[in-house]
Protein backbone atom coordinates (compact mmCIF):
# COMPACT_ATOMS: atom_id res chain seq x y z
CA UNK A 1 0.00 0.00 0.00
CA UNK A 2 1.35 3.39 -0.84
CA UNK A 3 0.28 6.56 0.87
CA UNK A 4 0.46 10.08 -0.44
CA UNK A 5 2.17 11.69 2.53
CA UNK A 6 4.44 10.61 5.36
CA UNK A 7 4.26 12.62 8.59
CA UNK A 8 6.65 12.06 11.49
CA UNK A 9 5.53 13.35 14.89
CA UNK A 10 8.19 13.73 17.58
CA UNK A 11 6.80 13.51 21.11
CA UNK A 12 8.20 13.51 24.62
CA UNK A 13 7.32 11.87 27.89
CA UNK A 14 7.62 14.52 30.60
CA UNK A 15 7.08 14.84 34.34
CA UNK A 16 3.82 16.63 35.02
CA UNK A 17 5.19 19.95 36.23
CA UNK A 18 1.89 21.80 35.88
CA UNK A 19 -0.27 19.96 38.36
CA UNK A 20 1.88 19.59 41.39
CA UNK A 21 -0.03 18.03 44.22
CA UNK A 22 0.79 17.87 47.90
CA UNK A 23 2.44 14.46 47.57
CA UNK A 24 5.13 15.87 45.31
CA UNK A 25 6.06 18.60 47.79
CA UNK A 26 8.83 17.99 50.28
CA UNK A 27 8.51 19.32 53.85
CA UNK A 28 10.83 22.24 53.02
CA UNK A 29 8.46 23.50 50.34
CA UNK A 30 10.34 22.25 47.29
CA UNK A 31 9.24 19.86 44.58
CA UNK A 32 10.25 16.22 44.65
CA UNK A 33 10.71 15.78 40.92
CA UNK A 34 10.87 12.00 41.13
CA UNK A 35 7.37 11.94 42.61
CA UNK A 36 5.75 13.61 39.60
CA UNK A 37 3.79 11.35 37.25
CA UNK A 38 5.10 10.93 33.67
CA UNK A 39 2.70 12.23 31.04
CA UNK A 40 2.45 12.83 27.30
CA UNK A 41 3.77 16.36 26.77
CA UNK A 42 0.60 18.42 26.22
CA UNK A 43 1.59 20.29 23.05
CA UNK A 44 2.94 17.07 21.52
CA UNK A 45 -0.62 15.77 21.76
CA UNK A 46 -1.68 18.82 19.73
CA UNK A 47 1.02 17.97 17.16
CA UNK A 48 -0.20 14.37 17.01
CA UNK A 49 -3.80 15.54 16.60
CA UNK A 50 -2.81 17.81 13.71
CA UNK A 51 -1.00 14.88 12.07
CA UNK A 52 -4.04 12.64 12.52
CA UNK A 53 -6.23 15.34 10.98
CA UNK A 54 -3.89 15.30 7.98
CA UNK A 55 -4.31 11.53 7.88
CA UNK A 56 -8.08 12.04 7.81
CA UNK A 57 -7.96 14.79 5.19
CA UNK A 58 -5.24 13.47 2.87
CA UNK A 59 -4.11 9.91 2.69
CA UNK A 60 -1.19 10.18 5.12
CA UNK A 61 0.81 7.80 7.24
CA UNK A 62 1.61 9.00 10.75
CA UNK A 63 4.79 7.81 12.43
CA UNK A 64 5.42 8.78 16.02
CA UNK A 65 8.92 8.89 17.48
CA UNK A 66 10.45 9.71 20.81
CA UNK A 67 13.81 9.76 22.53
CA UNK A 68 13.91 8.62 26.12
CA UNK A 69 14.39 5.76 28.54
CA UNK A 70 12.91 2.33 27.64
CA UNK A 71 9.64 3.10 29.47
CA UNK A 72 9.03 6.07 27.17
CA UNK A 73 7.47 3.41 24.90
CA UNK A 74 4.35 4.20 26.94
CA UNK A 75 3.74 7.52 25.12
CA UNK A 76 4.28 5.75 21.79
CA UNK A 77 1.54 3.21 22.61
CA UNK A 78 -0.64 6.11 23.72
CA UNK A 79 -0.11 7.66 20.26
CA UNK A 80 -0.91 4.34 18.55
CA UNK A 81 -4.16 4.16 20.58
CA UNK A 82 -5.13 7.56 19.20
CA UNK A 83 -4.41 6.74 15.57
CA UNK A 84 -0.67 6.73 14.76
CA UNK A 85 0.39 3.99 12.34
CA UNK A 86 3.95 3.23 13.43
CA UNK A 87 6.28 4.14 16.25
CA UNK A 88 9.96 4.24 17.03
CA UNK A 89 11.87 4.68 20.26
CA UNK A 90 15.32 6.17 20.30
CA UNK A 91 16.95 4.85 23.43
CA UNK A 92 20.55 4.53 24.50
CA UNK A 93 22.52 5.41 27.60
CA UNK A 94 24.67 7.54 25.30
CA UNK A 95 21.72 9.92 24.86
CA UNK A 96 21.53 10.74 28.58
CA UNK A 97 22.24 14.29 29.68
CA UNK A 98 21.45 15.78 26.29
CA UNK A 99 20.67 19.48 25.97
CA UNK A 100 18.57 20.75 23.07
CA UNK A 101 21.46 20.76 20.60
CA UNK A 102 22.38 17.12 21.28
CA UNK A 103 18.69 16.13 21.31
CA UNK A 104 17.96 17.74 17.96
CA UNK A 105 21.03 16.04 16.46
CA UNK A 106 19.90 12.61 17.72
CA UNK A 107 16.36 13.19 16.42
CA UNK A 108 17.72 14.30 13.05
CA UNK A 109 19.62 11.00 12.80
CA UNK A 110 16.42 9.11 13.61
CA UNK A 111 14.43 11.03 10.98
CA UNK A 112 17.10 10.24 8.39
CA UNK A 113 17.10 6.60 9.46
CA UNK A 114 13.34 6.49 8.99
CA UNK A 115 13.74 7.67 5.43
CA UNK A 116 11.60 9.92 3.26
CA UNK A 117 9.01 12.14 4.90
CA UNK A 118 6.91 15.12 3.90
CA UNK A 119 6.43 16.74 7.28
CA UNK A 120 7.81 16.62 10.78
CA UNK A 121 5.51 17.85 13.53
CA UNK A 122 6.42 18.55 17.15
CA UNK A 123 4.79 20.38 20.00
CA UNK A 124 6.05 23.93 20.41
CA UNK A 125 7.73 23.10 23.72
CA UNK A 126 7.86 20.53 26.51
CA UNK A 127 6.64 21.42 29.98
CA UNK A 128 9.78 20.18 31.76
CA UNK A 129 12.17 22.59 30.05
CA UNK A 130 9.86 25.07 28.26
CA UNK A 131 12.67 25.93 25.84
CA UNK A 132 10.89 25.53 22.46
CA UNK A 133 14.34 25.00 20.94
CA UNK A 134 14.34 21.41 19.73
CA UNK A 135 11.87 22.04 16.86
CA UNK A 136 13.83 24.83 15.14
CA UNK A 137 17.15 23.08 15.85
CA UNK A 138 15.89 19.83 14.33
CA UNK A 139 14.74 21.72 11.23
CA UNK A 140 18.19 23.27 10.90
CA UNK A 141 19.92 19.91 11.38
CA UNK A 142 17.81 18.45 8.57
CA UNK A 143 18.28 21.55 6.41
CA UNK A 144 14.53 22.03 6.01
CA UNK A 145 12.27 25.07 6.60
CA UNK A 146 10.48 25.53 9.91
CA UNK A 147 7.05 26.97 10.66
CA UNK A 148 6.64 27.57 14.39
CA UNK A 149 3.50 28.15 16.46
CA UNK A 150 1.22 26.43 13.93
CA UNK A 151 -2.51 26.51 14.65
CA UNK A 152 -3.71 24.63 11.59
CA UNK A 153 -2.74 23.35 8.17
CA UNK A 154 -4.64 25.21 5.47
CA UNK A 155 -3.54 22.98 2.64
CA UNK A 156 -1.09 20.20 1.89
CA UNK A 157 -0.17 19.34 -1.68
CA UNK A 158 2.74 17.46 -3.20
CA UNK A 159 5.81 19.53 -2.46
CA UNK A 160 4.01 22.38 -0.67
CA UNK A 161 2.36 23.18 2.64
CA UNK A 162 0.29 26.21 3.62
CA UNK A 163 -0.14 26.70 7.37
CA UNK A 164 -1.68 29.24 9.69
CA UNK A 165 0.46 30.19 12.64
CA UNK A 166 0.34 32.58 15.57
CA UNK A 167 2.52 35.68 15.68
CA UNK A 168 2.70 38.34 18.35
CA UNK A 169 -0.66 40.13 18.22
CA UNK A 170 -2.12 38.15 15.33
CA UNK A 171 -1.52 35.42 12.81
CA UNK A 172 0.23 34.63 9.55
CA UNK A 173 -0.45 32.25 6.72
CA UNK A 174 2.84 30.84 5.45
CA UNK A 175 3.71 28.73 2.46
CA UNK A 176 6.72 26.44 2.55
CA UNK A 177 8.08 23.65 0.39
CA UNK A 178 8.01 20.12 1.80
CA UNK A 179 9.67 18.52 3.59
CA UNK A 180 9.19 21.09 6.35
CA UNK A 181 9.02 21.05 10.11
CA UNK A 182 6.06 22.48 12.02
CA UNK A 183 5.85 23.20 15.73
CA UNK A 184 2.28 23.12 16.97
CA UNK A 185 0.59 25.10 19.74
CA UNK A 186 -2.40 24.32 21.92
CA UNK A 187 -4.95 25.05 19.19
CA UNK A 188 -6.91 21.82 18.76
CA UNK A 189 -8.57 19.24 20.97
CA UNK A 190 -6.62 15.97 20.85
CA UNK A 191 -8.85 13.01 20.06
CA UNK A 192 -9.18 10.42 22.82
CA UNK A 193 -7.72 6.94 22.70
CA UNK A 194 -9.82 4.56 20.65
CA UNK A 195 -11.06 1.39 22.40
CA UNK A 196 -10.53 -0.88 19.40
CA UNK A 197 -7.06 0.47 18.86
CA UNK A 198 -6.22 -0.07 22.52
CA UNK A 199 -7.21 -3.74 22.16
CA UNK A 200 -4.86 -4.09 19.21
CA UNK A 201 -1.91 -1.90 20.15
CA UNK A 202 -1.59 -2.79 23.82
CA UNK A 203 0.33 -5.72 22.36
CA UNK A 204 2.75 -3.38 20.60
CA UNK A 205 6.19 -3.80 22.15
CA UNK A 206 9.77 -2.72 21.79
CA UNK A 207 12.60 -5.21 21.58
CA UNK A 208 13.55 -4.48 25.22
CA UNK A 209 9.99 -5.06 26.35
CA UNK A 210 9.89 -8.41 24.52
CA UNK A 211 13.07 -9.49 26.25
CA UNK A 212 11.82 -8.27 29.62
CA UNK A 213 8.48 -10.04 29.25
CA UNK A 214 10.17 -13.33 28.45
CA UNK A 215 13.48 -13.84 30.17
CA UNK A 216 14.09 -17.13 28.38
CA UNK A 217 13.93 -15.19 25.18
CA UNK A 218 17.64 -15.39 24.65
CA UNK A 219 17.91 -17.12 21.34
CA UNK A 220 18.63 -14.41 18.80
CA UNK A 221 17.01 -16.27 15.93
CA UNK A 222 13.85 -16.94 17.84
CA UNK A 223 13.68 -13.31 18.87
CA UNK A 224 14.21 -12.10 15.33
CA UNK A 225 11.35 -14.33 14.21
CA UNK A 226 9.02 -12.99 16.90
CA UNK A 227 9.96 -9.41 16.03
CA UNK A 228 9.30 -10.02 12.39
CA UNK A 229 5.94 -11.63 13.26
CA UNK A 230 4.95 -8.56 15.29
CA UNK A 231 6.27 -6.23 12.60
CA UNK A 232 4.03 -7.98 10.09
CA UNK A 233 1.06 -7.09 12.29
CA UNK A 234 2.38 -3.53 12.86
CA UNK A 235 2.89 -4.39 16.52
CA UNK A 236 6.61 -3.84 16.72
CA UNK A 237 7.75 -0.53 18.13
CA UNK A 238 11.12 0.03 16.51
CA UNK A 239 13.86 0.50 19.05
CA UNK A 240 17.01 2.25 17.90
CA UNK A 241 20.31 2.91 19.62
CA UNK A 242 22.77 5.67 18.76
CA UNK A 243 24.60 3.19 16.55
CA UNK A 244 21.37 2.08 14.83
CA UNK A 245 20.68 5.63 13.64
CA UNK A 246 24.31 6.32 12.77
CA UNK A 247 24.73 9.02 15.39
CA UNK A 248 28.22 10.23 16.21
CA UNK A 249 28.72 9.50 19.93
CA UNK A 250 30.59 12.76 20.42
CA UNK A 251 27.52 14.70 19.34
CA UNK A 252 24.85 13.06 21.52
CA UNK A 253 24.07 13.06 25.23
CA UNK A 254 26.27 14.80 27.74
CA UNK A 255 29.28 14.80 25.39
CA UNK A 256 27.32 16.54 22.65
CA UNK A 257 25.84 19.22 24.89
CA UNK A 258 27.54 22.61 25.04
CA UNK A 259 25.40 23.81 27.95
CA UNK A 260 26.20 22.55 31.43
CA UNK A 261 24.19 23.08 34.57
CA UNK A 262 26.28 24.90 37.13
CA UNK A 263 23.77 25.06 39.90
CA UNK A 264 20.15 24.20 40.68
CA UNK A 265 18.17 25.97 43.35
CA UNK A 266 14.73 24.95 44.48
CA UNK A 267 12.16 27.69 44.54
CA UNK A 268 10.73 27.96 48.01
CA UNK A 269 7.60 29.79 48.96
CA UNK A 270 8.85 32.81 50.81
CA UNK A 271 6.59 34.44 53.30
CA UNK A 272 6.82 38.19 52.86
CA UNK A 273 6.03 40.75 55.46
CA UNK A 274 2.33 40.07 55.34
CA UNK A 275 -0.67 41.76 56.94
CA UNK A 276 -4.12 40.26 57.36
CA UNK A 277 -6.85 42.63 56.29
CA UNK A 278 -10.39 42.05 57.52
CA UNK A 279 -12.86 41.60 54.68
CA UNK A 280 -15.12 44.25 56.13
CA UNK A 281 -15.96 47.78 55.02
CA UNK A 282 -13.83 49.07 57.89
CA UNK A 283 -10.86 46.80 57.07
CA UNK A 284 -10.90 47.61 53.35
CA UNK A 285 -11.28 51.32 54.02
CA UNK A 286 -8.18 51.48 56.22
CA UNK A 287 -6.21 49.44 53.66
CA UNK A 288 -7.10 51.93 50.91
CA UNK A 289 -6.18 54.81 53.25
CA UNK A 290 -2.78 53.20 53.93
CA UNK A 291 -2.09 52.79 50.21
CA UNK A 292 -3.05 56.41 49.54
CA UNK A 293 -0.83 57.59 52.41
CA UNK A 294 2.24 55.78 51.08
CA UNK A 295 1.49 57.04 47.51
CA UNK A 296 0.84 53.58 46.09
CA UNK A 297 -2.59 54.87 45.10
CA UNK A 298 -3.77 58.29 43.99
Amino acid at each position, binding site marked *: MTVSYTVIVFVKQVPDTQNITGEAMTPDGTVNRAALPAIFNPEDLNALELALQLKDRYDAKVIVGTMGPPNAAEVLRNALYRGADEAFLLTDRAFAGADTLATSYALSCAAKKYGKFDLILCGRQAIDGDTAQVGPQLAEKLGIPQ*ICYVEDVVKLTKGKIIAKRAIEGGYEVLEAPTPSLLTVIDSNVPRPQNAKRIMKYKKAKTKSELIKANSTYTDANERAMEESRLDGKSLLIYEWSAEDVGADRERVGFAGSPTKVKEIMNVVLTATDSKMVE*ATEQGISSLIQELINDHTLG
Partner: protein
Amino acid sequence: MANIGNVWVFIEQEGGNIAEVSLELLCKGRELAGRLGVKTEALLIGDKLGKCVDKLYEYGADTVFLAEDPRLEPFTVQPFAKVIMDLIREYNPNILLFGATMKGRELAPRVASEKLAGLTADCTSLRIDNFDDKVSKKSYTDKLMQIRPAFGGNIIATIVNTWDDPQMVTVREGVMKMDEPMVGRKGELIKVKPALSGVETVVKVIERVREDKDVNLKGAQIIVAGGYGVGSKEGFNLIKQLADALGGEVGASRAAVDAGWIEHDHQVGQTGITVRPKLYIACGISGSIQHRAGMTGGKKIIAINTDPDAPIFAVSHYSIVGDLKTVIPQMIKAFKAKA
Protein backbone atom coordinates in the same frame (compact mmCIF):
# COMPACT_ATOMS: atom_id res chain seq x y z
CA MET B 1 43.25 32.95 26.38
CA ALA B 2 40.11 34.81 27.17
CA ASN B 3 37.81 35.53 24.31
CA ILE B 4 37.82 39.15 23.26
CA GLY B 5 34.62 39.07 21.26
CA ASN B 6 31.95 41.67 21.90
CA VAL B 7 28.48 41.48 23.40
CA TRP B 8 25.79 41.42 20.72
CA VAL B 9 22.09 42.16 21.01
CA PHE B 10 19.60 41.11 18.36
CA ILE B 11 17.25 44.07 17.85
CA GLU B 12 13.70 43.01 17.28
CA GLN B 13 11.47 45.45 15.43
CA GLU B 14 8.07 45.48 13.83
CA GLY B 15 7.61 48.08 11.09
CA GLY B 16 10.56 50.04 12.45
CA ASN B 17 9.27 50.07 16.03
CA ILE B 18 11.93 48.59 18.27
CA ALA B 19 10.70 46.03 20.81
CA GLU B 20 11.18 47.15 24.41
CA VAL B 21 12.95 43.92 25.28
CA SER B 22 15.70 44.79 22.80
CA LEU B 23 16.33 48.09 24.58
CA GLU B 24 16.31 46.29 27.93
CA LEU B 25 18.93 43.91 26.52
CA LEU B 26 21.09 46.75 25.20
CA CYS B 27 21.21 48.14 28.75
CA LYS B 28 22.05 44.71 30.17
CA GLY B 29 24.50 44.08 27.34
CA ARG B 30 26.32 47.29 28.19
CA GLU B 31 26.67 46.18 31.80
CA LEU B 32 28.07 42.77 30.75
CA ALA B 33 30.37 44.36 28.16
CA GLY B 34 31.66 46.80 30.79
CA ARG B 35 32.48 43.91 33.07
CA LEU B 36 34.38 42.14 30.25
CA GLY B 37 36.00 45.26 28.82
CA VAL B 38 34.44 44.81 25.38
CA LYS B 39 31.89 46.66 23.22
CA THR B 40 28.11 46.39 23.03
CA GLU B 41 26.89 45.89 19.49
CA ALA B 42 23.40 45.80 18.01
CA LEU B 43 22.15 43.71 15.08
CA LEU B 44 19.44 45.61 13.24
CA ILE B 45 17.95 43.51 10.47
CA GLY B 46 15.01 44.20 8.16
CA ASP B 47 14.25 46.80 5.53
CA LYS B 48 14.31 50.62 5.65
CA LEU B 49 15.43 50.87 9.28
CA GLY B 50 17.83 53.80 9.12
CA LYS B 51 15.71 55.86 11.51
CA CYS B 52 16.11 53.26 14.30
CA VAL B 53 19.88 53.54 14.50
CA ASP B 54 20.28 56.62 16.74
CA LYS B 55 17.97 55.20 19.38
CA LEU B 56 20.21 52.13 19.68
CA TYR B 57 23.27 54.28 20.39
CA GLU B 58 21.29 56.14 23.05
CA TYR B 59 20.42 52.90 24.82
CA GLY B 60 24.02 51.73 24.86
CA ALA B 61 25.08 50.30 21.49
CA ASP B 62 28.66 51.19 20.53
CA THR B 63 28.18 49.69 17.08
CA VAL B 64 25.08 49.04 14.99
CA PHE B 65 25.28 46.38 12.28
CA LEU B 66 22.54 47.36 9.84
CA ALA B 67 21.38 44.75 7.32
CA GLU B 68 18.64 45.98 4.97
CA ASP B 69 17.00 44.05 2.16
CA PRO B 70 13.40 43.82 0.91
CA ARG B 71 13.62 40.05 1.43
CA LEU B 72 14.05 40.68 5.16
CA GLU B 73 10.60 42.22 5.48
CA PRO B 74 8.31 40.81 6.77
CA PHE B 75 10.30 38.70 9.22
CA THR B 76 10.91 35.05 8.33
CA VAL B 77 13.40 32.89 10.19
CA GLN B 78 15.82 31.54 7.62
CA PRO B 79 16.95 34.80 5.95
CA PHE B 80 17.47 36.39 9.39
CA ALA B 81 19.42 33.34 10.55
CA LYS B 82 21.63 33.54 7.45
CA VAL B 83 22.47 37.22 8.04
CA ILE B 84 23.28 36.56 11.71
CA MET B 85 25.39 33.47 10.93
CA ASP B 86 27.42 35.38 8.35
CA LEU B 87 28.07 38.14 10.90
CA ILE B 88 29.03 35.65 13.61
CA ARG B 89 31.55 34.00 11.28
CA GLU B 90 33.10 37.34 10.40
CA TYR B 91 33.22 38.98 13.84
CA ASN B 92 33.16 36.17 16.47
CA PRO B 93 31.07 37.75 19.22
CA ASN B 94 31.46 36.48 22.78
CA ILE B 95 27.81 36.79 23.80
CA LEU B 96 24.61 37.04 21.77
CA LEU B 97 21.34 38.08 23.42
CA PHE B 98 17.84 37.68 22.00
CA GLY B 99 14.51 38.64 23.54
CA ALA B 100 12.50 35.54 24.48
CA THR B 101 9.67 36.70 22.23
CA MET B 102 7.92 34.55 19.66
CA LYS B 103 10.39 35.76 17.02
CA GLY B 104 13.43 35.41 19.27
CA ARG B 105 12.46 31.91 20.33
CA GLU B 106 12.18 30.64 16.74
CA LEU B 107 15.24 32.48 15.41
CA ALA B 108 17.84 31.92 18.14
CA PRO B 109 17.68 28.08 18.08
CA ARG B 110 18.04 28.01 14.30
CA VAL B 111 21.23 30.08 14.58
CA ALA B 112 22.57 28.14 17.58
CA SER B 113 22.05 24.82 15.82
CA GLU B 114 24.01 25.91 12.76
CA LYS B 115 26.80 27.44 14.87
CA LEU B 116 26.85 24.40 17.22
CA ALA B 117 26.60 26.88 20.07
CA GLY B 118 24.87 26.45 23.40
CA LEU B 119 21.58 28.28 23.82
CA THR B 120 19.66 28.85 27.03
CA ALA B 121 16.01 29.83 26.81
CA ASP B 122 14.03 32.36 28.81
CA CYS B 123 16.74 33.66 31.11
CA THR B 124 15.64 35.89 33.95
CA SER B 125 19.10 36.91 35.14
CA LEU B 126 22.57 37.12 33.59
CA ARG B 127 25.97 37.77 35.12
CA ILE B 128 29.65 37.11 34.49
CA ASP B 129 31.44 34.59 36.71
CA ASN B 130 33.96 31.77 36.60
CA PHE B 131 32.92 28.15 36.20
CA ASP B 132 34.64 24.99 37.43
CA ASP B 133 33.15 22.04 35.59
CA LYS B 134 33.57 19.24 38.09
CA VAL B 135 32.53 16.58 35.60
CA SER B 136 35.10 17.39 32.91
CA LYS B 137 37.53 18.96 35.43
CA LYS B 138 37.90 22.08 33.33
CA SER B 139 37.86 25.67 34.52
CA TYR B 140 36.45 28.58 32.61
CA THR B 141 36.91 32.26 33.41
CA ASP B 142 34.52 35.13 32.76
CA LYS B 143 31.67 33.05 31.43
CA LEU B 144 28.07 34.15 31.11
CA MET B 145 25.95 32.71 33.93
CA GLN B 146 22.58 32.01 32.29
CA ILE B 147 19.96 31.88 34.99
CA ARG B 148 16.45 30.63 34.28
CA PRO B 149 13.48 29.00 35.92
CA ALA B 150 12.98 25.38 34.85
CA PHE B 151 10.73 22.49 35.62
CA GLY B 152 7.58 24.57 35.41
CA GLY B 153 9.18 27.27 37.55
CA ASN B 154 9.88 24.96 40.46
CA ILE B 155 13.65 25.29 40.20
CA ILE B 156 16.09 28.00 39.18
CA ALA B 157 19.02 26.72 37.14
CA THR B 158 22.33 28.41 36.37
CA ILE B 159 23.59 27.26 32.98
CA VAL B 160 26.95 27.80 31.32
CA ASN B 161 27.93 27.34 27.69
CA THR B 162 31.26 25.52 27.62
CA TRP B 163 31.78 25.32 23.87
CA ASP B 164 32.95 27.90 21.40
CA ASP B 165 31.40 31.30 21.38
CA PRO B 166 29.03 32.92 21.08
CA GLN B 167 27.29 32.19 24.35
CA MET B 168 23.68 32.53 23.27
CA VAL B 169 20.58 33.16 25.34
CA THR B 170 17.03 34.35 25.01
CA VAL B 171 15.89 36.64 27.82
CA ARG B 172 12.39 37.12 29.14
CA GLU B 173 10.69 40.41 28.42
CA GLY B 174 10.46 42.84 31.27
CA VAL B 175 13.02 41.28 33.60
CA MET B 176 16.05 43.41 32.71
CA LYS B 177 15.94 47.02 33.79
CA MET B 178 15.81 49.60 31.03
CA ASP B 179 18.00 52.63 31.75
CA GLU B 180 17.22 56.16 30.66
CA PRO B 181 18.49 56.84 27.12
CA MET B 182 21.75 58.81 26.89
CA VAL B 183 20.43 61.49 24.56
CA GLY B 184 22.85 62.44 21.82
CA ARG B 185 25.17 59.46 22.40
CA LYS B 186 26.74 58.29 19.14
CA GLY B 187 28.29 55.09 17.85
CA GLU B 188 29.57 53.46 14.71
CA LEU B 189 27.30 52.28 11.91
CA ILE B 190 28.39 49.23 9.94
CA LYS B 191 26.22 48.54 6.91
CA VAL B 192 26.03 44.87 6.00
CA LYS B 193 25.11 43.51 2.60
CA PRO B 194 22.87 40.48 3.19
CA ALA B 195 24.05 37.50 1.13
CA LEU B 196 20.70 35.82 0.56
CA SER B 197 19.86 33.20 -2.02
CA GLY B 198 16.86 31.11 -2.97
CA VAL B 199 17.87 28.62 -0.28
CA GLU B 200 16.87 30.89 2.60
CA THR B 201 13.88 32.59 1.04
CA VAL B 202 11.68 29.55 0.45
CA VAL B 203 9.04 30.40 3.07
CA LYS B 204 6.52 32.93 1.78
CA VAL B 205 4.17 35.03 3.86
CA ILE B 206 0.80 34.83 2.12
CA GLU B 207 -1.22 36.70 4.70
CA ARG B 208 -0.32 38.64 7.81
CA VAL B 209 -2.81 40.03 10.30
CA ARG B 210 -1.66 41.77 13.42
CA GLU B 211 -2.77 44.49 15.76
CA ASP B 212 -0.74 46.34 18.31
CA LYS B 213 -1.66 45.18 21.75
CA ASP B 214 -4.14 47.42 23.51
CA VAL B 215 -3.02 46.19 26.91
CA ASN B 216 0.19 47.47 28.37
CA LEU B 217 0.76 45.27 31.37
CA LYS B 218 4.53 45.61 31.34
CA GLY B 219 4.45 49.34 31.86
CA ALA B 220 1.45 49.38 34.20
CA GLN B 221 1.87 50.86 37.69
CA ILE B 222 -1.31 49.27 38.98
CA ILE B 223 -2.61 45.85 37.91
CA VAL B 224 -5.83 44.23 39.02
CA ALA B 225 -5.68 40.56 38.06
CA GLY B 226 -8.39 37.92 38.10
CA GLY B 227 -8.10 34.17 38.36
CA TYR B 228 -10.29 31.11 38.31
CA GLY B 229 -12.10 32.39 41.39
CA VAL B 230 -13.61 35.18 39.29
CA GLY B 231 -15.96 32.47 38.04
CA SER B 232 -17.10 33.76 34.65
CA LYS B 233 -16.53 36.13 31.76
CA GLU B 234 -19.07 38.51 33.30
CA GLY B 235 -17.18 38.28 36.59
CA PHE B 236 -14.26 40.03 34.89
CA ASN B 237 -16.40 43.17 34.62
CA LEU B 238 -15.84 43.58 38.33
CA ILE B 239 -12.07 43.27 37.83
CA LYS B 240 -12.27 45.88 35.05
CA GLN B 241 -14.30 48.22 37.27
CA LEU B 242 -11.67 48.13 39.99
CA ALA B 243 -8.86 48.59 37.45
CA ASP B 244 -10.67 51.58 35.92
CA ALA B 245 -11.34 53.12 39.33
CA LEU B 246 -7.68 52.85 40.35
CA GLY B 247 -6.33 53.80 36.92
CA GLY B 248 -4.78 50.38 36.37
CA GLU B 249 -4.68 47.58 33.82
CA VAL B 250 -6.43 44.22 33.92
CA GLY B 251 -4.30 41.11 34.36
CA ALA B 252 -5.24 37.45 34.57
CA SER B 253 -3.95 34.06 35.59
CA ARG B 254 -3.57 31.26 33.09
CA ALA B 255 -6.61 29.49 34.52
CA ALA B 256 -8.83 32.48 33.69
CA VAL B 257 -7.32 32.76 30.18
CA ASP B 258 -7.72 29.03 29.56
CA ALA B 259 -11.34 29.26 30.69
CA GLY B 260 -11.87 31.80 27.90
CA TRP B 261 -12.92 34.64 30.21
CA ILE B 262 -10.21 37.02 29.01
CA GLU B 263 -7.66 37.26 26.18
CA HIS B 264 -4.14 35.87 26.44
CA ASP B 265 -2.65 39.38 26.17
CA HIS B 266 -3.69 39.87 29.80
CA GLN B 267 -1.93 36.78 31.14
CA VAL B 268 0.66 37.28 33.86
CA GLY B 269 3.15 34.56 34.72
CA GLN B 270 5.58 32.03 33.36
CA THR B 271 3.83 31.67 29.99
CA GLY B 272 2.53 35.23 30.02
CA ILE B 273 4.09 38.53 30.96
CA THR B 274 6.42 39.38 33.83
CA VAL B 275 5.21 42.51 35.58
CA ARG B 276 6.63 44.75 38.29
CA PRO B 277 3.92 47.30 39.17
CA LYS B 278 3.63 49.52 42.24
CA LEU B 279 0.47 47.64 43.17
CA TYR B 280 -0.75 44.18 42.16
CA ILE B 281 -4.17 43.06 43.30
CA ALA B 282 -4.69 39.31 42.84
CA CYS B 283 -8.40 38.50 42.90
CA GLY B 284 -9.45 34.87 43.08
CA ILE B 285 -5.97 33.72 42.02
CA SER B 286 -4.72 30.66 43.88
CA GLY B 287 -1.10 31.53 43.10
CA SER B 288 0.51 28.65 41.22
CA ILE B 289 4.28 28.85 41.02
CA GLN B 290 3.91 29.71 37.33
CA HIS B 291 1.76 32.73 38.15
CA ARG B 292 3.93 33.86 41.03
CA ALA B 293 6.96 33.78 38.70
CA GLY B 294 5.42 36.69 36.81
CA MET B 295 4.22 38.97 39.60
CA THR B 296 6.34 38.74 42.75
CA GLY B 297 8.30 41.75 41.46
CA GLY B 298 5.30 43.91 42.39
CA LYS B 299 6.12 46.40 45.18
CA LYS B 300 2.80 45.91 46.99
CA ILE B 301 0.71 42.81 46.49
CA ILE B 302 -2.85 42.45 47.71
CA ALA B 303 -4.45 39.01 47.54
CA ILE B 304 -8.17 38.39 47.81
CA ASN B 305 -9.19 34.75 48.08
CA THR B 306 -11.86 32.75 49.86
CA ASP B 307 -9.34 29.97 50.63
CA PRO B 308 -7.13 30.97 53.57
CA ASP B 309 -4.58 28.32 52.50
CA ALA B 310 -4.19 29.63 48.92
CA PRO B 311 -0.45 29.84 48.04
CA ILE B 312 -0.93 33.42 46.84
CA PHE B 313 -1.05 34.51 50.48
CA ALA B 314 2.56 33.42 50.88
CA VAL B 315 3.69 36.23 48.59
CA SER B 316 1.11 38.92 49.37
CA HIS B 317 1.76 41.94 51.56
CA TYR B 318 -1.93 42.32 52.32
CA SER B 319 -4.06 39.21 52.65
CA ILE B 320 -7.83 39.44 52.48
CA VAL B 321 -9.66 36.19 53.11
CA GLY B 322 -13.03 36.89 51.58
CA ASP B 323 -15.23 36.87 48.51
CA LEU B 324 -14.02 39.19 45.78
CA LYS B 325 -17.64 39.94 44.86
CA THR B 326 -18.07 41.82 48.12
CA VAL B 327 -14.48 42.96 48.68
CA ILE B 328 -14.00 44.62 45.28
CA PRO B 329 -17.09 46.85 45.53
CA GLN B 330 -15.93 47.84 49.02
CA MET B 331 -12.53 48.79 47.61
CA ILE B 332 -14.06 50.87 44.82
CA LYS B 333 -16.33 52.62 47.28
CA ALA B 334 -13.52 53.29 49.76
CA PHE B 335 -11.20 54.63 47.05
CA LYS B 336 -13.84 56.91 45.54
CA ALA B 337 -14.64 58.28 48.99
CA LYS B 338 -11.02 59.17 49.70
CA ALA B 339 -9.39 60.07 46.41
